[in-house]
């Protein structure tokens, strides 16, 4: 059983994990840059509407940025570890970490949509649905289609 051949779908799932982990890295960099640069932006040549928008962003509690960065880092680690787990068909690293990512992913998207202001990705929209699809799909696939493939 230990040398059971890895199905192509599991490899695809791992590749998608690595792609989304890459997006999380970009998210962390973007949020860190926004957080540090926001107070230093020169608003001289801007229109009143643009200035108001910058002001709104500056009024956001910095801890929200920190929490958002934290969530991205956690998802990055979970995606990376579970991706490696899928490739090696590991029970703990693949199935368990993958399930944790799936559950946290669904909860995280709902939490971000409901708690965070729209300027930092809050509010329920089609993007939230896109964000929820992959963790939900991971949960479903790991517990049905690939249930017997993560055995090492």
């Amino acid at each position, binding site marked *: 059983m230990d040398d059971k051949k890895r199905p192509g779908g599991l490899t695809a799932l791992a590749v998608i994990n690595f792609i989304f982990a890459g997006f999380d890295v970009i998210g962390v960099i973007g949020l860190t840059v926004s957080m540090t640069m926001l107070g230093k932006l020169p608003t001289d040549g801007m229109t009143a509407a643009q200035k108001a928008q910058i002001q709104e962003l500056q009024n956001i509690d910095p801890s929200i940025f920190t929490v958002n960065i934290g969530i991205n880092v956690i998802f990055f680690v979970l995606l990376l570890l579970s991706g490696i787990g899928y490739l090696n068909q590991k029970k703990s690293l693949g199935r368990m970490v993958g399930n944790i990512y799936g559950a946290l992913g669904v909860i995280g998207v709902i939490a971000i949509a409901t708690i965070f202001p729209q300027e930092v990705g809050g509010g329920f929209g089609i993007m939230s*649905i896109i964000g929820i699809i992959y963790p939900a799909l991971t949960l479903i696939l790991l517990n049905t289609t690939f249930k017997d493939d993560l055995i090492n």
Partner: protein
Amino acid sequence: METLSASHIRIIAYYWSRYIVRSGSGLAYLMIALIFGLFSAQILIMPVEKFIQQKQDVSESNLQNIRYSIINIEKPIVQYVLGVKSFKEVGQDLPNDLMNTMISKPVAEDSMGFDRWTSFLLVKRPALLSAIFLILFFGMPFVVTYLAFNQLSGDVQSRGLRYLLLKTERGNIYFGRFLGTIVFSTLVTALIIAVITFYLAMKLRIYPAMSLIGWSLHGFMALSLLMLPYIALCAMISASIDSPMLSFVVANLIIPGVLITAAIGRIAWAPLKYINYLLPWGWQNHLLHPSPIHLLMALLGCLVYTAIFLMPGYYIFEKRDL
């Protein structure tokens, strides 16, 4: 043909539609199709959402204004896709400032000066959904190759098909896998359209629910039917080529290649635009036409093209060395 068995085809189709996620191509298709479909919808819905947020007051009279404003926004997309206006004309008509265009006083329905087809899609049906359908009609044929490219070639290459041939005939495998691919593609199409419709109905609330449901059902059936000839083409390619990678490349060269050749060729020599008719590109939007005759012809077109691609593939697969 005498060796075909309905029960075998049904069993193979059922297991293929389940196995396709395990094999990876189904999973890739599911993700790409969902992301493509929902992102396309998001691009069109986002300005409308911002506009509604600005307006705040969503009374019935305001709703009518919002609907007309959406028509102004979606008009260039629809007119270009239907061939009513050229790219240059559409570019000239495009508003400089999207939000101001939406806020400006809407034009009365009867003085819009649309042709019958544009008017049907923009005025008589939910314009936002019509524009989303046109984008899906354009994009999904490219996306479906990710699902359909490996109906047979992978198993031919690995010789795995020989084990299956001990239990059933080649024709049953060919048609069973084709049907299984259709089932999976249809389920994904249903999911995409259901999510978009649900979102429009529950979040935006600018169109009556029944109108949204009716039009989305039409769009779903049209899009599902449109996928048939493209899946059949991939079945033919997959039955003819041993390597799944080569099968994928060839499918991805033919489907966009026909469209690009026609688009570029018509500049040099106008009749080259008819190359589009080698695939459904030339007439596929008629699946959203107001005239029942156009609709029926497009529907028949889907079935005829499917048969044209499917049958040679079947004969190739029957005769080839496995």
